[in-house]
């Protein structure tokens, strides 16, 4: 065995392993990623840059990139980024709705996760199960339940009226952006709470005690110790929650269905059942590229946190 080869191999517990040994463990996940992400993404690109069957209006993917037709994709880019583009309102709305929903998820989810991890005691498991239990019911059914609750004569309006918070019934289901945002929050908030709970529960109590011993107030302890230590969970929860929100279309469909609250997911959904499937694929591609930026920030931040921990 050459010296160079020997150096490339590694020794663990007195046993030499060939250099491919440890990376080989990544094979299943690499294959998984390849077949469930790379290949489908390439299929979407092939549709976005493909053609439309002139008779049936179906997409004809073009697999060879040298034969790609960029007409539909250029249309999507122009209508998304140039002034007055028809897709701009949907993109802006999506950004605002998802941003608002994320903020509410954090504001509501963090205290809930904090409470369960710190004060749940022997009820921790019960509280977690109680939190997740409604989500065993399908998303569709839960949203339909909200349709009933939010009707003009529904329980929400009745309760608000009883509490003298509103004089006349609020028309929640008549194309209100706030209803869509609250629907998104309700649909996705457990995915924010669970990673937050995991992180908060793992924080070493001695660190908090040390902060208190050094004279930090509870508020200062929270902002200087607890919050920084849960930053990665906040980021993880935000990524888990926002990614599906950006593609969501049925929350808008069920709780609004108004063109005034259309999100990008709805535009894609409409385009799929039209002869503009190439545009739908183009929109998906643009959205993915836009979402890569926060994803990279998340990966960068996680890597940095790991380095710091090491």
């Amino acid at each position: 065995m050459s010296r160079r080869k020997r150096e490339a191999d590694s020794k663990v517990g007195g046993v030499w392993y060939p250099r491919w040994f440890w990376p080989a463990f990544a094979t299943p996940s690499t294959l998984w990623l390849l077949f469930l992400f790379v290949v489908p993404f390439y299929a979407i690109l092939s549709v976005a840059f493909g053609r439309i069957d002139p008779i049936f209006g179906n997409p004809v993917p073009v697999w060879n990139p040298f034969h790609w037709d960029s007409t539909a994709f250029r249309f999507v880019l122009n209508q998304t980024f140039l002034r007055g583009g028809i897709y701009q309102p949907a993109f802006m709305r999506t950004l605002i709705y998802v941003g608002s929903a994320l903020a509410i998820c954090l504001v509501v989810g963090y205290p809930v996760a904090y409470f369960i991890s710190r004060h749940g005691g022997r009820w921790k498991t019960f509280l977690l199960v109680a939190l997740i239990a409604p989500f065993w019911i399908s998303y569709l059914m839960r949203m339909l339940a909200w349709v009933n609750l939010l009707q003009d004569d529904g329980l929400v309006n009745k309760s608000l009226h009883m509490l003298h918070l509103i004089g006349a019934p609020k028309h929640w289901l008549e194309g209100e952006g706030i209803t869509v945002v609250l629907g998104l929050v309700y649909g996705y908030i457990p995915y924010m709470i669970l990673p937050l709970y995991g992180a908060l529960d793992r924080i070493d109590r001695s660190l908090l005690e040390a902060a208190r011993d050094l004279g930090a107030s509870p508020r200062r302890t929270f902002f200087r110790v607890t919050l920084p230590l849960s930053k990665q969970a906040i980021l993880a929860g935000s990524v888990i929650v926002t990614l599906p929100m950006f593609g969501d279309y049925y929350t808008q469909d069920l709780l609004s269905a108004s063109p005034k609250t259309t999100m990008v997911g709805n535009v894609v959904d409409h385009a799929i059942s039209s002869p503009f499937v190439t545009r739908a694929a183009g929109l998906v591609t643009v959205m993915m590229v836009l979402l890569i930026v926060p994803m990279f920030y998340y990966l960068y931040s996680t890597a940095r946190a790991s380095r710091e921990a090491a």
Partner: protein
Amino acid sequence: MAHPRERWSYRRSLSRREFLRRSAGSAFALSSAGAFLAACGKASNPTFVPSVGPTGSGGSASPSGLPFPLARKDNPVTWPIYDDNPLIQSGLQPETNATLKIYNWEDYLWPRIAKNFGKEFGCEVEISTFPDYQTGISTIQTAQVDYDIYFPDPSILGKLIFGKLVKPLNLDYIPNLKNQWLQLQSPFYDVGSQYSVPYTIYTTGVAWRNDKVSEDIPSMSNPYESMWDAKYKGKIRLLDDYRESIGMALLKNGITDLNTENPADIELAKNDLLEMVDLVNVKLDVSDYTNIPEGTSWINQAWSGDMISAQYYLPTSVPVEALSYWYPPQGGGAVGSDNLVVLNTGKNPVLAHMFLNYMLDQKNAFDNFYNFVGYQPPQSNIDPDRLVSEGVIPKNLDTTVVRPEDFDKGYTYLELSPTGDALWNSAFLEFSG
């Protein structure tokens, strides 16, 4: 009672998993579309030659960019029988140990009818559903499925025939065709019923809650304008269908060509629809049959069949008399039909023919309409007046009854050229966001 054309439950509430399955499925499977087009080029009848088809005649080729003619009332089409897509022979016995596979809209066939057919003809009957025509055709085109029967409307029939996705009908197996209204025994979009037979008929009009809306909509000079009435902001809904919504805006403006490809007409309709967004905060769905009875909407563009079903969704506190439906009483509105065809992908062409005949049977057609679907079959023995007098349809909903003359005076959504279809779709997508 379930609802007939419950597209909503599928299209508008697709699960993420289903969405991914469909997206990936179409992305991969539709690669065969290229092969299909190539195959079209090699077919024995690569281009449609009007009047000289192997057994067909009539219809003139349109400058549509399509290799087949666009059927119109003034341009009836007799589709050819292609050499490589012949009729089945007469007198064949039905397939044994078979499973007849029906590919239909959600809740658009009474399950008991299907069960009875299976019992009578010694086969299993399996019903699968499609959410919209685009998905339905894509699925059939992949040839990965072996559905026997499909339910197209005239707006997609031409492409199904030209693409040889449907089998020509041997009418020897379908004597019950004679039970249908005369003009639908040989409709202009398929002269001689060579590929299709009628299943249900409907009109598209305006439905409203007369206990909530003070205006007498039928007496308005232009009842379509009721849908632009700002007084009912938030309580007005349109059908989430690109042909129907734009079509209604065209009719409102007095444009009766519901297959117009004139950009100025479509632009006018689109601008009218866009006006609705701010004016009445219009919403789009196909839940007209629940919106109106439940009071979610007070004025709703609606299909006549849905309004017949609507009575079963009324809360107990609301009497059926609160429902109203307007369709131009002298005719001249949107009128449509859904049809039955036999698919080439199926393994049971004889049973499929027999099923078509079974559904055109007077009793079966009526039972299917009355007990489940709510959409009227064009059976000549069904007296529209008796539907009301015998209480099948409430008196206040007598406007939902479709009459043979409606098909003479009404306007049907038909196949568009690819350019025209793109024009309509583009306008709708701009409106719907």
